[in-house]
C-alpha cells in the first residue's frame, strides 16, 4: 500500500506533507521569512503550505489584476436612481405598472415612480448617469457596467450572502477568502484580506461578508479602518517587556523544537510570532494617514470636517489605496451599514430621495477620488475595482410610501481597472427597469468574472468540504466576456 492510495484528498491544506528538515538553529526568523516569499503554482485545488499560508501564489493563468478593491454598498442601491436610465419610467410616472406584481417583498405595490434624480449624458460614451452621483458620473468612460444582474433572493441576509459567498445560506467562504486562499498576498507584514466597515456601522450580514466559512480561519478578512486598527495589535505593557517576553518565548520554542525536530507545525507557529511582530510595525504605518498630502485629503473629501461621515468614509478609501499599494491582495470597502429603515444604508423603502441625498454625498466623491487616484498612480493597471450591491429596487413605489421595494431581477454593478474594458455597458433591463431581459447574468457570472480577472478559473478554484468540491460559483457561472479588455 502506498500513501497515495490512502488519501486522494490528502493534498489539501493542513494535511501536512512537507516537513522542514532544517535544524532548530537554522530556524531564525530570517530563514523563515525567506521561505514566505517563495512562489507556488496552483493545481486543480490550491496547494497551501501550512507554514506560510499567505505566501503569494500564482493563479491558473495570467490574470491582469493583482489586487482587488470591492466597494460594497449594503442595503441594495436602486439601479433606477443611479446607472440604469429609463426614459419610459419618466413617461409613465404615477401610473400603475401594467402586469406588475400586486405584492412584493415588503407588501402591496404602488404606482410607477420616475427616477428621483435628473439624468445627463457623460463622457465619450454618452452614458446616462443621474445627478445623484456627479463625481462618479465623470468617470463613466473608465467603468464597465453590467446592467442585467440577478440575485436568487430578495431578502438582504441571504442576498448579501449570495453576493459575498455565492450561496444564500450561512457558512460559506467569502470572495475575499477565496482569493486570499488562492493567491496569498504580496506583503507578509499585513493581512492578505482587509474588510473596512462603513463609519456608520457594520453591514447587514456582518462578518459573513468577509468570513472564511469552511476555509481555514487564516483566510478570513481582518477588520480594520482608519479609525480602528487591528485588535490586539499591542499589549498594554511597556515595549521592553514585550521584547523580553518574546525573546524568552523564542528560546522556549526553539528548545522544544530541538526535542521534536522536523515537526513543521511547531516551526510554523514560531514563524507566526515573527510575522505578528512585523505586523505590529506595519499596521500603524498603513493606517496613519498623516503623510498623505493636503491635496489628496481634499480630493477625497477627507479633510472636510463639516461632513464628518463623508470624511470618515473618504479616509477608509485612502486606507484602501494604501493597503493595495503595500501589496494587500483584497480590500473590501463597505458603504452603508445595518438595516435601519434606510437611514444608514441604501434600503430606500420609505423616503428614498431624502435618504439617498445623504448616502450619495458620502459615497460619491470619495470613491470617484479613489479611482482617479489609483489611475494617476498607475495602480489601476493591476488593481481591479468592483462596485456592487446585493440587489436592485422596483420601478414602482411601495403603496403609501415614497420608496422602492427589493428587486432581485435586474440590477447594476460595475467593474473598473485591471483587465476591464472601460466605458462599456453590458446587458439590459426592460424599459421600466423591472427585470433583466438581455444578457441576463446571475451574480455567479459577476463573481466568475472577478476571479477570471485575477487569473483564476472559477471552476477550478475549489475546496473540498463535506464531500463536495465547493466553489464560489456553486455549479454555475460564466465569465462575462463583454466586459473584458
Amino acid at each position: 500500500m502506498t500513501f497515495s492510495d490512502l488519501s486522494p484528498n490528502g493534498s489539501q491544506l493542513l494535511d501536512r506533507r512537507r516537513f522542514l528538515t532544517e535544524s532548530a538553529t537554522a530556524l531564525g526568523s530570517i530563514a523563515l521569512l525567506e521561505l514566505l516569499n517563495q512562489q507556488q503554482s496552483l493545481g486543480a485545488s490550491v496547494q497551501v503550505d501550512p507554514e506560510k499560508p499567505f505566501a503569494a501564489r500564482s493563479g491558473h493563468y495570467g490574470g491582469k489584476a493583482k489586487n482587488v478593491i470591492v466597494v460594497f454598498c449594503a442595503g441594495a442601491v436602486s439601479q433606477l436612481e443611479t446607472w440604469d436610465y429609463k426614459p419610459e419610467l419618466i413617461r409613465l410616472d404615477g401610473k400603475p405598472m401594467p402586469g406588475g406584481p400586486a405584492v412584493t417583498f415588503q407588501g402591496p405595490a404602488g404606482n410607477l415612480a420616475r427616477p428621483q434624480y435628473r439624468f445627463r449624458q457623460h463622457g465619450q460614451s454618452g452614458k446616462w448617469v443621474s445627478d445623484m452621483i456627479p463625481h462618479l458620473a465623470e468617470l463613466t468612460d473608465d467603468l464597465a457596467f453590467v446592467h442585467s444582474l440577478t440575485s436568487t433572493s430578495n431578502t438582504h441576509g441571504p442576498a448579501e450572502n449570495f453576493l459575498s459567498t455565492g450561496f444564500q445560506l450561512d457558512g460559506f467562504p467569502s470572495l475575499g477568502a477565496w482569493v486570499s486562499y488562492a493567491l496569498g498576498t504580496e506583503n507578509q507584514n499585513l493581512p492578505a484580506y482587509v474588510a473596512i466597515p462603513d463609519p456608520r456601522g457594520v453591514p447587514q450580514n456582518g462578518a459573513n461578508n468577509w468570513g472564511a466559512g469552511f476555509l481555514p480561519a487564516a483566510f478570513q478578512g481582518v477588520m480594520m479602518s482608519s479609525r480602528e486598527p487591528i485588535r490586539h495589535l499591542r499589549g498594554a505593557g511597556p515595549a521592553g517587556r514585550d521584547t523580553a517576553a518574546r525573546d524568552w518565548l523564542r528560546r522556549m520554542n526553539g528548545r522544544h523544537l530541538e526535542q521534536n525536530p522536523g515537526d513543521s507545525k511547531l516551526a510554523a507557529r514560531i514563524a507566526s510570532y515573527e510575522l505578528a511582530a512585523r505586523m505590529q510595525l506595519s499596521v500603524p504605518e498603513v493606517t496613519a494617514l498623516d503623510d498623505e498630502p493636503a491635496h489628496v485629503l481634499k480630493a477625497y473629501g477627507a479633510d472636510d470636517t463639516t461632513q464628518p461621515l463623508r470624511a470618515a468614509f473618504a479616509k477608509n478609501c485612502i486606507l484602501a489605496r494604501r493597503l493595495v499599494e503595500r501589496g494587500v491582495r483584497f480590500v473590501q470597502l463597505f458603504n452603508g451599514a445595518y438595516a435601519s429603515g434606510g437611514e444608514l444604508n441604501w434600503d430606500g423603502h420609505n423616503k428614498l430621495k431624502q435618504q439617498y441625498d445623504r448616502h450619495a454625498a458620502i459615497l460619491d466623491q470619495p470613491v470617484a477620488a479613489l479611482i482617479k487616484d489609483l489611475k494617476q498612480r498607475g495602480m489601476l493597471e493591476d488593481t481591479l475595482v468592483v462596485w456592487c450591491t446585493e440587489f436592485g429596487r422596483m420601478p414602482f413605489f411601495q403603496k403609501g410610501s415614497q420608496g422602492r421595494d427589493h428587486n432581485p431581477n435586474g440590477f447594476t454593478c460595475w467593474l473598473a481597472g485591471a483587465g476591464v474594458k472601460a466605458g462599456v455597458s453590458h446587458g439590459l433591463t426592460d424599459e421600466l427597469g423591472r427585470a433583466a431581459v438581455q444578457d441576463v447574468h446571475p451574480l455567479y457570472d459577476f463573481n466568475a468574472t472577478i476571479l477570471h480577472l485575477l487569473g483564476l478559473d472559477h471552476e477550478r478554484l475549489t475546496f473540498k468540504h463535506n464531500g463536495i468540491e465547493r466553489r464560489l460559483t456553486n455549479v454555475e457561472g460564466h465569465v462575462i466576456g463583454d466586459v473584458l479588455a
Partner: protein
Amino acid sequence: MFRWLLCCVCFWCLLDAFSPSVFAQRVDYVRDVRPILQQHCYRCHGEQRQRSGLRLDIKSEAFKGGDGWGESLIAGDPEESPLMQLVTADDRDMRMPPGKDGLPPEAIAVLRRWIAEGAHWPDGVDLAELEDRMDHWSFKPLVVTSPPAVATADWARGPIDRFVLAGLEQTGLSPSAPAEPLAWLRRVSIDLTGLPPTPDEARRFLERVATSPTAYEEAVDRLLASPRYGERWAQHWLDLVRYADTHGFEVNTERPNAWPYRDYVIEALNSDTPYDRFVREQIVGDAFDQDPATGFLVTASVLLPGQIGKDEASKRLARQDALDEIVNNVSQTFMGLSVGCARCHDHKFDPISARDYYSMQAFVAGVEYKERRVETGDAEERRRRAAELRERIAAIDQRLSDHVPLARPQTHAAGRTTSAKLDRESFPPQEARRTAVDALLNIDRFAPVTTDRVRFVVAATNTLEPCIDELEVFNVQGENVAAAERGTGLMVSGETMVANRHEAHFVHDGRYGNERSWLSNQDGAGTIELQFADLQTIDRVVWSRDRNGQFHDRLATDYHIEALVDGVWRRVADAGDRHGYDADAAPTRLADELRLSGLSDEGRRQVERQRKEKQSLEKAAAEAEQGPVAFAGRFRTPDPIHLLSRGDPEQPRDRVPPAVLSRFGEQTLAPDCDEQTRRLALADWIVRPDHPLTSRVLVNRIWQWHFGIGFVDTPNDFGRNGSRPSHPELLDYLADQFIRSGWSLKQLHRRIVLSSTYRQSAQHNAFAAQRDADVRLLWRFPRRRVEAEVIRDTMVAVGGRLERTMGGRGFDRFNKRGGLSGFTPVESFEGEGLRRMIYAHKVRREPDAVFGAFDCPDGGQSAPRRSESTTPIQALNLFNSTFTAEQSAALSQRLRRECGSDVDTQVARAFELVLCRSPTPTEQKEAGRLAAQHGLETMCRVLFNCNEFLFSP
C-alpha cells in the same frame, strides 16, 4: 427560434428530396451517430464528466436526459427532442456544443434523421459501462475479520494494535516508542476532558504507575466518569451539527432557548447514552421523554418571519431552505451522506435521486423552527391552566376597557388651533381630557378599525430617547395581536441595543419591565411599526414604559398611533386629548385610566372587584406559565412535499411520500402519515444494526477526534466521492464491536486510548515521514495544536478560577448584539464569564475576539473536522489580549499565594500547572530572570504562548 427551426426543417426537406445519395440508407448509430457524439459531446457528457447530469455514451443515460430537461431523445420526433433543440438553438448561450460554431450542419442533419427514423440505438454496442453506484465499500454490510497476525508480537495490546501494526509492517514501518507516562496522561486528559491533569492528579498517577499494573485503566476510568468529559466531547458534536445561540442571517438575533439542546448533548454523553438511542432522541426525542434533544433538528440558521418576503414565492423558498438544512443535518451527521446534493438534480456520484431527497424532506416536513414547551411531569396540566387563566384575564380586560374613554385624535395635526370653538375635535375641553401619560400603563381605546399595520410614533419624551417595555394591540375579541408569537412583524426607526436589556423585539415579546424593552436611538423620537400576520379589527392599544413600576424616565409624553387603512395611515389616538404630563404628579394606577364617573356605586364596586380578580389571576397565570421551553422545533401537520424540478419551489412536480433512500432500503410511509410517526420511522431506519453507514460513520468520527484524522478523512462524506478508509478492516471491526457493546461511546474511547497505538510517543521520525508524511498509518501519535476551547479553559483553570457550573444560558462574549456597532466583544471576564467555553453564548459567525482565530467553526455549515491554521492574528491575540493579561495575572496571584515570594518555587509551580512538568535548570534560570525584571505575569504570559502549551504531547 421557431422560425429558425422551420428553416432547418425546410432545408432538410430539400436535402432529403434532392440529395438521395447522402441519405440513401438508414442512419446507423454506430457508423454515423456515435462518431458525432464522440467528437463533439463526450468531453462534457461522457465517462469523465456529466455536465448538467447528461451522459451521452450510454444508451439508458442518453435517453434519460439531463437535469430538468426530461428525456433528451424522443424517438421519431426530432423537433421535440431536447437534444436537437439544444444543438440547433440560435441563442449562443444555450446552443450545444458551446463555442462559436456549434455542430456542422451535416452532423445536425444526421442526428435529425436518426431521431426521425426512430433513434435506433442497438443494445450492447456501448463502449462504456454504467457503473453500479451501490458498488462502494461503505454501502455494503460490515465485513468483520479477525485481527491479523503480526510479526512484532509483544507490542500489540489488543485488536486495534494488531490491525494498525499489520499496516505498518506492510509498509516497512514500525511503531514509535511509548510516550512518557506523564505525556500520555496530559494527552489523554486533554483528549477526554479538554483540561490538563492537575499537579496532584499527575503525582498520584505516577505513584500508581510505579505500583499498579492498572494505573492507565484507572486514569481513563476517572476521566470518563468526570462531568468534564461530556463538556469536552459535546463540543465536537456541536461543531458537527452547527449549533449556535443565534438565528443567523442578517439580524442574527438571539435564539434564547437553544441551550437546552447543548445541555442535553453534554448530559447524554456523560451518562453514556447508547448511540442508537442518542440518534433516536435527537430526531424524535418528544417520543422518548427527551424533548430538548430535538433541538438537533433546528440547529441551522433560519430566516425569521419578518425577514421573509411577503410574496408567496419568497415564503416557499424560505421554507424549502429551512427543510433542506434539516435533511442535510440528518444525512451528513448520522450517515455521512451528502443527500443535499440531490436537491436540484440526481446526485452526481452517489445513488441518491432527487426523488430520494424529497422523500427525506417528507419525514421532517412538519418541523417548524420554533420553541416548544419542554415536557415535564405536570407540564400539560400547568399549560392548560395557564391558558385558561389568560383567557379569563383577557375577558376582564375587555370588560374593563369599556370604561376607558375613547381617544379623540387630532386628525389634522397642523390645523390645531387654540380655539375650542373652532375645532372641538382636536382641542377637547379640559374636563373631558384623558389622564396624562404614565410610565406604568396607558390605554388608548378607539372605534374599531380593520388593519394589518399599526405604528406608534413618539414625538416627545420627558427625558432622552424613548423606551417602551411593551406595546400591545387588542382586537375586538380581546386578543393581543401585537405579540411576536402570533407572527407579528416588527420594524423600528432605530434602537440603542444593550444585550438582554434593550432589544427592539422585546417590545412585543409579552414580557414586561425595563430589562425587556425597546430603547430608541433618537432623543425624544422613535417609531415602532407592527405588521400583523393577517387583517385584524382592533380597538385598543396598551403601552407602557415600565410595567414593573421602577422606571419613569424616557416616557413618551407626545405620541400618536396610526393604523394603515386602505393604504393610508389613519390616526386613531394621540396624546393631544390627554392632560399634560406633569413630572411631579404621583404615578397613576390602572383605575385612574378608567372613567368611573357616571357609574352607580354598585357599578364602581363591580369594576373594583374585577380589577382585584384580575390581579390574582395574573399572579396565578405567571406561576403556571413558568415551565421550561426549548428551541427544539415545533411539530405540526406536515406540508405536502413535492418533487421540485431543479430544486425550484415554483416548479413542483408530483407529490412524494416519506421514504428512506430507495437504494438503501424499502420503507415508504403513507403520504398522509402523522408527523411523529414519520420521524420515528426515519430514526428507526438510521439506527438499524444492519445500516451500513451509521456505525462506521460514528466510529470514524470518534477515531478522528482522538487522533486528529479519521480512517476516512472525509468524515461527512462516506459516499463515492469521499476518501477510502486507511484501515478498512479496523474500521469495520470497531463498528461491529461498537454495536455489540450496546453502542457505548465510553467503551469505544476506552479501547482506543488504552491501545499501544494511542500510547505511542509523538516523536518525529524522518524515515517514517518519507513513507507516510500524514501519519495515516499511525507510526507515531500525530501531534496537533489543541483547540481554542482547550487553550481558553486551561488558561482559566490553571489560574484557579475556572467556574464549574454546568448548564443553563451561556455567558456573553459580546457587550452588544448586532445593530450598528456590530458585536462588541467583552474584553474582561469575571464570574460566569470564566465558565468553560462550551457555555459561551454562541453567536453564529461572530468569532470570539481572542479565540475565534483558532479555527472555531462559525456555526454556518457543519464542521466535522476543525482546520488547524496558524496565523499572526492568533499570535497577536494570545500575546496581547486583555484576556491573556488577566489570566496571567490570576496565575501569578495563585503562584504568590501558594509559593510565597520565592521565585524558584513560583517558576517550578508555574511549569507544573501549565506544562505538567518541572522546569530544567536553564528554564528555571531564564524564567526567574524574566519574572524578576518584568514581573511574574510576564513569565506566565510566555508560558501561555509556548508551543509546548499549545500542542497536545
